[in-house]
């Protein structure tokens, strides 16, 4: 990224942090957390401990970071190297990202930026200009991406509440600032479990590693009555609803499953997993030392804020998570794909000089689709 772009982004971010510090959610037990941040064109600085919101504010004002992170874990000494921190516990976290949902719409709004010659083209495996395969992909997520991610969040919440007995009040959902959602679970029975246990929990939520026996199918002498009922709780109930469709079809479908046999049933399970399993990123959930984007901070992949979703179904990130100013700025834009922000449409732009409001200019510069003119 060129100097003038960085300066522009830093000025815009600084203004946001100055005016909207109230949106930063200083985490509970601040002094037990590890903080970290990145500056534009620079590496990660982590193992920082912070006393309170004043100190955090100072960090923002002095460093003007591109991204700020905070641990889900609680430590006795958050500022020491990892193996001396003395890990105490960690909130349960989930990351749901539109890029992991195998959505067909993505092809339409992904651009390929060549790392060698900077050529921007619509989704392609190699550069159309210099044929290099060193391609960076950037996506301008659409409404379908956000809606599909929301569906996953709702599926996740249902499992957290019904199966894992987590209080609804202890589940906080945030828009990640780019293409998905971050879900936090506080004060649960899982605070102190380690990484391997969390990985198992992730498999449970994703419907990974299921064996036919769990749903009544046995290699030898399977028994009709051990198949799940429509009104059962947990995965057996969700499986019934997906596979049988309705109560009346249950018996007929079980007969079919029995005829098709054990290995076919395993395939059914794999297909069902794709539909009813929740598509979380397991690496995030199993990481107990992660520093995770700080709620209320700006995501430098987009210039949008990671913000709490009070009403998920109605939430529209492109109007509710954009807090940068309307002030005009002139940029060279090269975006083959159009996008909407704050209820305004932008693009497509083909290598042209345009005057845009700051929030849209920041979005495009963050996506590497524009530079300051």
């Amino acid at each position: 990224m060129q100097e003038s772009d960085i300066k522009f982004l830093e000025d815009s971010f600084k203004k946001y942090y100055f005016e909207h510090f109230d949106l930063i959610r200083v985490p509970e037990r601040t002094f037990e957390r590890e903080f970290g941040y990145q500056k534009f064109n620079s590496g990660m600085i982590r193992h920082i401990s912070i006393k309170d919101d004043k100190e955090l504010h100072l960090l923002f004002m002095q460093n003007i970071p591109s991204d700020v992170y905070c641990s889900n874990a609680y430590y006795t000494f958050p500022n020491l190297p990892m193996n001396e921190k003395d890990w105490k516990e960690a909130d349960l976290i989930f990351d749901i990202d539109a890029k992991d949902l195998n959505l067909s719409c993505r092809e339409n709004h992904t651009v390929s930026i060549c790392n060698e010659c900077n050529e921007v083209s619509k989704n392609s495996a190699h550069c159309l200009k210099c044929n290099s395969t060193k391609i960076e992909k950037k996506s301008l997520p659409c409404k379908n991406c956000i809606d599909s991610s929301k569906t996953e969040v709702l599926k996740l919440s249902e499992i957290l509440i019904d199966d894992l007995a987590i209080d609804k009040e202890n589940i906080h959902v945030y828009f990640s600032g780019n293409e998905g959602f971050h879900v936090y679970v506080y004060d649960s029975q899982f605070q102190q479990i380690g990484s391997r246990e969390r990985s198992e929990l992730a498999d449970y939520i994703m419907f990974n590693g299921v064996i036919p026996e769990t749903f009544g199918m046995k290699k030898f002498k399977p028994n009709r009555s051990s198949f799940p009922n429509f009104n059962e709780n947990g995965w057996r109930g969700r499986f019934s609803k997906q596979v049988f469709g309705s109560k009346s079809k249950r018996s007929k479908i079980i007969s079919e499953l029995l005829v098709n046999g054990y290995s076919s049933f395993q395939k059914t399970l794999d297909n069902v997993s794709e539909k009813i399993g929740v598509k979380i990123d397991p690496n995030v959930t199993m990481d107990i030392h992660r520093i995770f984007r700080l709620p209320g901070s700006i995501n430098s992949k987009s210039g949008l804020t990671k913000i709490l979703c009070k009403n998920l179904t109605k939430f529209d990130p492109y109007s509710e998570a954009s807090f940068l100013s309307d002030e005009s700025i002139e940029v060279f834009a090269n975006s083959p794909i159009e996008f909407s922000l704050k209820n305004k449409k932008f693009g497509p732009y083909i290598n042209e000089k345009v005057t845009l409001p700051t929030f849209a200019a920041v979005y495009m510069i963050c996506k590497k689709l524009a530079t300051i003119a």
Partner: protein
Amino acid sequence: MLALGQDEIAKYPFLADAGQYLKDKGFTLEQFGNDPDLKPLVAKAFERIQVAADGKIYKSELIGEKASKEAALPREVFSFLLAIVLLKLSGMHTLIKRFSLAEARRAEKYLEKDLANISDESKKELAIRIIDDLFSVQVEKLDDYFVISISDYLKHSINFHEREWKLINRHVENGQVFLTPHETVRLIRKELGTYINSKIINAKTPTMIPGFEDSVNKLVLLSKKFITFTVTTGEYPPCIKHAIEELEKGENLPHSGRFMLGTFLLSKGQSVEDIAPLFKNAPDYNQRVTLYQLNHLAGTSGSGTKYICPSCEKLKTQDLCFAIPECDNIINPLQFGKKRK
């Protein structure tokens, strides 16, 4: 510590304080070595170890007639305590391990029976208390099931590699896992073995007791049977091959895949400089960053922690496993192609 009756000590002899038990009964170890009436108990102790070494479970005399029970109970406890003395004198760790596991499985049978005991509430209570005291797992009875919290379940189930123990294959409701008495006890088998093992390891080794020599020598001979040699084919497992192929094609291998590849090759003795060129086709390749990260994995920079290759289970979760029949139920890619001889 739990207050135990005579028959409970016989079922769960590892709960007894060995020294105290002998004192209470008015015996010294030396007596077992030279008193003709007691000496057969040393032979019985040896037999108990031999059965364990063969991978079987020692059959107790407790099942016999009631009349002989009075005499049988202390014999049961003595043979266990003497077995420990013999093991300590032999110093053979493989035998201690096998013995602990076999004794754990023996105790498991009693625990299961006690848990499922409907007619004697106190037996069930004791089993529940043993599980709680020893392993901090709180079990509650609910209809025909025993329920434990998911977090407690996970702490133990992660030690199993069979898929049936995965949380997804369990009856989960309301933050709890529902188990049969058999499953409840099976869940803590490994820890029960570890508990017995650590009790034996931590016990003081006595000086050789006259009359014990023969049995001890036989144990040393017995343990020789378990020395194994391993050979490796040197071929890479499919997950590693896949990762290398992806990189060669210039595909963007995820961070977790790079971690797996790096740690695997480092464990196989390759150097950071050998490994780094593998990544040069990656779309985001940067030599400096690659070397930094590999050095970090090798423990030559940063905190000095040497990272190890993730387990097959973890790789499955991360979508990096491409198992083939030759994987043969290994639990870590590093075991691929290793055969015991």
